[in-house]
């Protein structure tokens, strides 16, 4: 076999309306890439038989007894497979509105998404909502598959009709699908093999399409951001630990500590087991600063030129998940990176239906369950945020009440 240099693994969420075939598609991907162990396949066959069903590929991810008996996906799951190009982490998500928090949990970890649409049903409520949520969560690379082509007799006209409708909807949100592929997950058409029954389609198969997705190269700005996670006392020294979100750092470098913008110098960078004078994006490290500086969890280390000061407010696009609505001027907890601060919604510019994207109300007083909104938040003290499009990790936040995540958003 030719020796292929593999690309870095990528995480892809499978999203779309209930019963459009997400879990079946995953089963098919595993089967066609020979990523299934013999004993797991045998187990699926046996359980399908026990439940009086044909071999149900969806059972590979739908592992809960409740999921299998009701033929639904309740919670998100992850599964691994590899092609010759790269390794994949596939994130299955539930299609029912009832389990939308689990869909968001799964999709928040994805770098790309496959939006699946049943060709016989066309665009449905969760098709639109999932596309919107994935895009809001920063998953910009999207491949669309029209599934169940076998049920239409592999008809080109219905594919073209649905493709045009969907493209118009996505365009409205500023999304362009990477590819739109007609498939039958159940029969295996156009997943790993080009199907003669879909001879009129000249584009890539699904696997060819996802193999072409490049890993995210954005977000490699040179500005330094290091949120302090904790402070350890080691051998008489204060070591600030945390993960580098952006930029680089080296011993001897002058830096600013936010939100107060205090200036100091990095004395040393510590990583257990090896000497290092330098740290880059993604690394979990320890830092020792010059002099005795009062630093706490939630402070953010930045380049010394940081203009500051950090503000007491920010504006975000949010999605609300709780039965109890978000209300103007009512106390909430906002968390962003390692920062955690009390605040309120100061202004709700508008709230909208997260599926139709229709604006329900401008200048609203509340945001209700499953609605999206643009909100300005005011915090009790200063908070360091960045636009999501600039530094993701400082541009995303959750809203908590009574220790529960009830909403999430990105800074705009």
């Amino acid at each position: 076999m030719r020796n292929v240099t593999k690309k870095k693994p990528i995480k892809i969420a499978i999203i779309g309306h209930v019963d459009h075939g997400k879990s079946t598609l995953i089963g098919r991907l595993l089967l066609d890439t020979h990523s299934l162990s013999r004993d797991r396949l045998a187990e699926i066959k046996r359980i399908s038989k026990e439940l009086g069903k044909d071999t149900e590929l969806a059972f590979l991810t739908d592992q809960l007894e409740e999921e299998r008996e009701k033929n639904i996906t309740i919670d998100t799951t992850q599964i691994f497979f590899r092609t010759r190009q790269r390794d994949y982490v596939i994130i299955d998500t539930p299609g029912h509105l009832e389990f939308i928090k689990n869909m968001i949990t799964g999709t928040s970890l994805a770098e790309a998404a496959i939006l699946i649409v049943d060709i016989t049903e066309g665009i449905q409520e969760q098709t639109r909502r999932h596309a919107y949520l994935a895009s809001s969560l920063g998953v910009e690379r999207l491949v669309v598959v029209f599934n169940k082509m076998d049920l239409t007799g592999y008809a080109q006209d219905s594919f073209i009709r649905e493709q045009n409708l969907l493209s118009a909807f996505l365009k409205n949100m500023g999304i362009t699908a990477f590819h739109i592929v007609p498939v039958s997950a159940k029969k295996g058409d156009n997943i790993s093999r080009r199907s003669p029954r879909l001879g009129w389609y000249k584009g890539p198969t699904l696997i060819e399409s996802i193999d072409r997705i490049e890993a995210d190269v954005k977000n490699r700005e040179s500005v330094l951001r290091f949120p302090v996670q904790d402070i350890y006392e080691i051998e008489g020294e204060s070591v600030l630990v945390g993960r580098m979100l952006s930029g680089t750092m080296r011993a001897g470098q002058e830096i600013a500590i936010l939100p107060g913008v205090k200036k100091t110098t990095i004395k040393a960078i510590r990583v257990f087991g090896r000497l290092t004078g330098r740290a880059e994006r993604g690394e979990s490290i320890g830092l020792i600063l010059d002099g005795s500086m009062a630093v706490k969890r939630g402070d953010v280390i930045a380049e010394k030129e940081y203009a500051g000061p950090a503000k007491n407010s920010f504006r975000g696009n949010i999605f609300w998940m709780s039965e109890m609505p978000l209300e103007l001027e009512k106390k909430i907890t906002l968390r962003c990176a390692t920062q955690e601060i009390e605040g309120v919604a100061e202004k709700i510019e508008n709230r909208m239906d997260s599926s139709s994207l229709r604006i329900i109300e401008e200048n609203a007083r509340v945001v209700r369950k499953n609605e999206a909104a643009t909100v300005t938040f005011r915090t009790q003290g200063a908070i360091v945020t960045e636009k999501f499009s600039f530094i993701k990790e400082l541009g995303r936040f959750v809203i908590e009440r009574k220790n529960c995540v009830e909403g999430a958003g990105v800074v705009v």
Partner: protein
Amino acid sequence: MISYLDELESKSVYIIREAYSRFRNIALLWSIGKDSTALLWIVRKAFFGKIPHPVVHIDTSFKFKEIYEFRNRYSREWGLDLIISRNEGALQEGMCPDKAKLECCNALKTEALKITMQERRFKALLLAIRRDEHGIRAKERYFSPRTIDFKWDYRNQPPELWDLYKSNVEKEEHFRIHPMLHWTELDIWKYIEREKIPTASLYFAKDGKRYRSIGCETCCAPVDSSAADIKKIIKELKTTKVSERSGRSQDKESAYTMQKLRSLGYM
């Protein structure tokens, strides 16, 4: 740019430090297998060599002899604050795998841990489960709340977005923290190779057999393999058609044994 293994490690370190930052009163569950030994290694790195919290070994008394030797040697070498967790009551009453697997696992592992938790009241336990090991484990969160009687409410898990983990629960509840959830079996072995992490010799083939997953001696079967060193294991895993836990009997007594065990608090 940092490597893929560095990314996996950095994320695990972040989660471990997040757990410690939030609770301080935490412990690591060490089964002495490859995954929890890799986790232990990463915890040592996260705390610059000196782990600031206890390490718990759930001892069913049915573990392999080598596992006990390995535990004693490295807990000394790494200066661990080791807690040995045993359900002495059940052992005295003769609980053993011959009776019934589900009951035995539940009594000697889950119930033993409950006894230790009652004594020590840890707010969080670090566990080395991985999503690719078992479909039920694939449904887990990184920070997973458990009730006082260890119940896992898998029907209604809290949302977990990005790396903003839930970290407050009602007073009597605790968290299961899963810093290795995103690693695969292959990643673990590549990491063990790179870091030169000591690993029990049961994993390496002797006479055409090796253990891929290690639990109690009574309930583990070796798989056919000629992989006698780490390089060969890595090569084997790239093409194998046998699942990792195929030798673990508690996984497949019936289709939902693992789900039932886990909802009762099993690891």
